[in-house]
Structure formats: C-alpha cells, structure tokens
C-alpha cells in the first residue's frame, strides 16, 4: 500500500469544486460519473499545443506575426491557395526552418511524456520515466553503436548530414528494450517485497552500465565523439522533415496502442494478482506496453538525443491537476508533453540567441523547479 506523495495528491487536491471540469463532479451525490477525460481538459490540451506551435513558428531572430503564419500554413494545405503576406524569405523561414523543428519538438514531447506515463502505470511506480529506467541510456548506447558502426565500417558521412540514418532508431530500440528488460528483471529480484525504489536503483545501475559502454564506443571511434556529444545533450537543431517522418510512425503506433490500453492500465493499478482475478492479463498488457513505450522512446532518442524530465514531469503534472486515471493521464500527457517540448525548444534557441542551449539542459532547468512548485501547491490545497 505504498502511497506516493505525488499521486496521493489526487483529484480532490486540485481544489475539489474548483477543479476545471475534472470529469467527476465531487461533492454531489448520488449521480456521479467515473473519471474520464473531460472536454474542458481536452480543449485546454489542444489549445496549449496550438499556442506552443504558433509561438515556436513566430519567435526567433526574425519575428513574424501569428496571422501571417496561419495563412502561410493554410497555403501549404493541398488545394488551398492563400497569400500569406509574408516575404519569400519569411515564408521560407516558416516552412523550411521552423516548421519541421516545431513538428519534431511536438512529436518528441508527445512521445516521451506518453512513454513516461505508460511506464508509471505499467510498473505502478510514480518515479518511472524513460530516463530513470535506463531506457534512454539503452537507446543512446544502441544509437551510438549504430553511428559508430556507420563511421567505422562504411566510412560514410550519413550522420554528418541533416538527418538521422534509418538504422539508428532500430539500434536504439534494441538498446532500449534490452535496458528496460534488464531493469525490470533486476528490479524484480526484490520479490514480493520490492519497492518503487528498488526498480529505480536497478534503472540507475543499468543506466551507468549502458553509459559506460557508450563512453567506450565514443573513445574507440574518436571521430564521432563531437557529434555524439552534442546529440547526447539533446538537440532539435538539425531537425528537418527527414527526422519528423522518421519519428512519426513510431509516435503514431505508440499512441494508438497506449491509448487503446489506457483502461487496462487502470486495472493494473490494483496489482497483478487482483487484476488477474478481475479477468485481465497483466503480463500480456505489461509486455505489450513495454515494447511500444520503448519503441517510442528509442525513436525519440534517435532523432533528438537525450532529453530528460519530460517523461516524469508532464504525466505527474497532469495527474495532480486533471485526475489519476490513465484515461485522463495518457491523452493529456501526449498533448501537454508536445506543447512543453515545443516551448522548451523555443527557449533553447532564443534565450542565448544566436547561441543555442541544448534542449536537454532547458527541460531539466525548467522542469525540476516547475515540478517542485506544482507538488507544493497541490499539497497545500489538499
């Protein structure tokens, strides 16, 4: 009966009646509704994505008006011909430079936040996150090995270009899956007395191990050190449509599977044995989710490097504000994760402009204090 402080501050914590359309009308009897995604929260999520995307397209060294951007975007739709009012150069900035980058940010954020929420539900562990479980490190090791192999054996300069080689996500996936399974097995050695901390300790051990291998590979293939280093810190800088198209199918696949299984994650919250007594198949559900969440994480890591904190903060914030059911957490994590990442990327490229901060630094810098604030406020309301 471990009650995590973060989770313990559930719905009512958000202020009971004042919780914006939290799906369940608290304090009224007897016609209550089960906790579901409310239209209000869904709209808030869509609005957040829209605002983040528009800000990402509008702001930068050249500032553009939102109206011109919207017209320019509509002009891109096949069959629509609108003059945006932007100059050719400005139009190129929107469509060729900023749009792919914003799209990639949205996809990476949605993927990592959803993966984090999924891991938390699947392991019944509020601390689970692609980072803490070693998934990201495994993916990083796999990707580094793939990049090193390209350089070492083929001596091609594929990674020098703007895109990520197609092989990299697959290698990253293999690494991610290996890492999460190792963490799972190591964390399970505590038997029935295992606690959330054991799993995370296992994740830390696995992370160190894969990071060590990655370090070795970087030394061994010195010519790639620089490249891999910038990649580790997380980057959306070289984002082009190639990266977006590479990640998109993985994100879509993961979203479909995870959202389809969101009710099952609520069933898993009572533990495997009770879930089985309710007629569910906990092991089957868990392995399915491990595979798709790791696949999504690996693909995100392949195109953007290691971007921490998103998988932990976003689902938690959603849980604290909107509700503790995975039917609420997963879809909202997808939307707010996307918005969060697009805004973080905006900060990464504007704060020290023209220099750029690695986005992983930004998410950690913003994420950690933000999380503490959220945690403290909701506790006080309780």
């Amino acid at each position, binding site marked *: *009966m471990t*009650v*995590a402080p973060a*989770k*313990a*501050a*559930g*719905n*009512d914590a958000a202020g009971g009646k004042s919780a914006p359309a939290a799906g*369940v*009308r*608290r*304090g*009224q*009897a*007897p016609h*209550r509704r*089960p*906790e579901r995604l409310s239209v209000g929260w869904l709209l808030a999520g869509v609005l957040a994505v829209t605002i983040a995307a528009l800000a990402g397209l509008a702001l930068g060294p050249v500032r553009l008006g939102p109206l011109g951007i919207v017209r320019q975007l509509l002009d891109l739709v096949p069959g629509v011909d609108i003059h945006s009012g932007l100059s050719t150069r400005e139009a190129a900035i929107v469509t060729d430079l900023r749009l792919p980058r914003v799209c990639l940010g949205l996809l990476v954020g949605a993927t990592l936040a959803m993966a984090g929420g999924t891991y938390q539900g699947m392991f019944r562990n*509020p601390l689970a996150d692609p980072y803490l479980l070693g998934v990201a490190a495994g993916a990083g090791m796999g990707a580094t090995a793939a990049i090193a192999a390209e350089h070492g054996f083929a001596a091609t300069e594929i990674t020098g270009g703007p895109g990520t080689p197609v092989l990299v996500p697959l290698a990253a996936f293999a690494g991610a899956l290996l890492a999460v399974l190792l963490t799972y097995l190591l964390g399970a050695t505590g038997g029935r007395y295992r606690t959330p901390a054991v799993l995370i300790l296992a994740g830390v051990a696995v992370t160190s191990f894969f990071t060590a291998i990655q370090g070795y590979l970087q030394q061994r293939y010195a010519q790639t050190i620089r490249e891999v280093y910038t990649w580790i810190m997380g980057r959306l800088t070289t984002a082009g449509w190639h990266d977006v198209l590479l990640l998109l199918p993985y994100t879509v696949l993961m979203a479909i599977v995870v959202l*389809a*299984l969101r*009710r*099952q994650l*609520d*069933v898993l*919250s*009572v*533990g495997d*044995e*009770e879930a*089985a*007594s*309710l*007629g*569910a*198949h906990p092991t089957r559900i868990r392995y399915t989710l491990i595979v798709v969440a790791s696949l999504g994480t690996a693909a995100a890591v392949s195109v953007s490097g290691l971007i921490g904190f998103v998988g932990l903060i976003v689902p938690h914030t959603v*849980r604290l504000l909107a*509700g*503790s*059911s995975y039917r609420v957490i997963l879809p909202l994590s997808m939307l707010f994760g996307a918005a969060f990442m697009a805004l973080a990327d905006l900060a990464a490229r504007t704060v020290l402009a023209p220099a750029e901060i690695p986005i992983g630094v930004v998410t950690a810098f913003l994420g950690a204090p933000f999380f503490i604030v959220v945690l403290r406020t909701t506790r006080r309301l309780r």
Partner: protein
Amino acid sequence: MSDPVELERVSVALDGQPILHGVDLTVPEGSWVTVIGPNGAGKSTLLRAVGGLVAFGGAIRLFGTPLRRLPRRDRARLVATVAQDPVVPPGMAVLDYVLLGRTPYIAPLGRESATDLAAVDAVLERLDLAGLAGRRLESLSGGERQRAFLARALAQGASLLLLDEPTTALDIGHQQDVLDLVDQLRRDGGLTVLSTMHDLSVAGGYADRLVLLVDGRLVAAGPPREVLTEQLLSEHYRARVTVVDTGHGPLVVPVRPARSAPTPS
C-alpha cells in the same frame, strides 16, 4: 446444480515449496465455509487456488466447470476475491475503484456500458457507499475501505465470493458490520462464501462449516461445534484453550498458564 466449489486432491507448490497436499473440499451452494488453521497452514493459498490465481495439481471445479477450462473473464464472472491486503491505488475514487469490478464485462479495448454503471450504483447503494463515491479510497477509514473492497468484488456479479481474512484490520464493531453485511448478502442474493479467518470464535459465529487446515492438509471439517474442540485446537494450534458453548456458537478462550504462587521476598 453442481456445487459452487469442488476440490479433488488439490496440491499447490509455490517457488518449489509444497503448500497444499491433496485437499478435498466441497462448498455447497448458499453456504459459508471458513478455512481456519495455524499460520502458514496454506489458508490463503487455498483461496488463491480456487480463485484461479496459482497453478495447482488435482482438480478444481467451479459450478461444475473445471477451473482450468474457464477463460479468465468467464472465471471472473463466477468468482470474486477480496484479497487479504488489497492494493489501494493512489488517487482513485471509490466509484472508479468499484467500477474495476466490471472488468470481466467490459471488452479489453472497450469502455463501460450503462449496465455496468447501473450495477456499480446498485452495489454502492447496497453497501451504503453512495455518499462516498467521489472520495479517494486512501482517505476512507478502515471500515469504509473494507466495504469498498467488498463492493468491487460484488460488482463482479459473481455468485461465489472468496474472502481472505476480511476483518483482520478492523476493530470488533467494524468486524461485525462487515461480517453481518456478508451474511445478509449471502441470504439475500444467494451468494456462496468461502473465507479464511484468524479469529476462531468469529469464524465459528458466522460460518456454516469450518475446515481446519494444518500444514497444507485438511484435518477436520464440519459444523463449528465439531471443529472447534479443545482437543483439536490444542493438538493443531498447540494452544491452551477452553471452548465455551454459548447460544451463538462455540467461544474459544485462550487460557494463561497457571502462575506459580508469588513468593514473598
């Protein structure tokens, strides 16, 4: 109509350790059978086996159907379990928790129907939980929580209820509330109850039949009066007890060893 539970030479080993050895047991429809026995006798394991939650040797039939041939969802519509120490999912409201009991009726990728919601409403009403439906499970008192656990099991609509130590965490008043409620449900709704219990007097007070399990073997079974005897209890519990026959069933009273007379110093 076949009996709700039939066990034939049932054996269970956990982690290579044999727990149950060839247990035979029948639970007739509408009865309340309680398994008693010393710590580590295998009481919980017996319940888990009947619930289909551990692998077993021998044969278990639920309402005449071999347990092994029952798909999970079908099984969950026949038998509902309240575990000894159920997991309390953080942040979950009572209503959502009880709704989990409808899992065997909801397609794996589907959502609950109006029937499911109506069933949950009825159970909440019946267990006097309607006013607590929106409360978080972890904010409830011990007695309320136990009723919520029971409500989830009842929402499964199963006619066999397995209760593993349903009252260990409760004070004597709440113990009675919960057990009276189960007894009432059994009489009203044709439920069959198989439970384990620690408190022998309480066990004898509510069950039609007691089953004494010792080291994974069934050593005695019958009406409480026949099982709760000084001889059986001292032999198998290695306890000094006096059994007092009250009008409501045998009362088992532990006896302190006679103290030697105080020596004046």
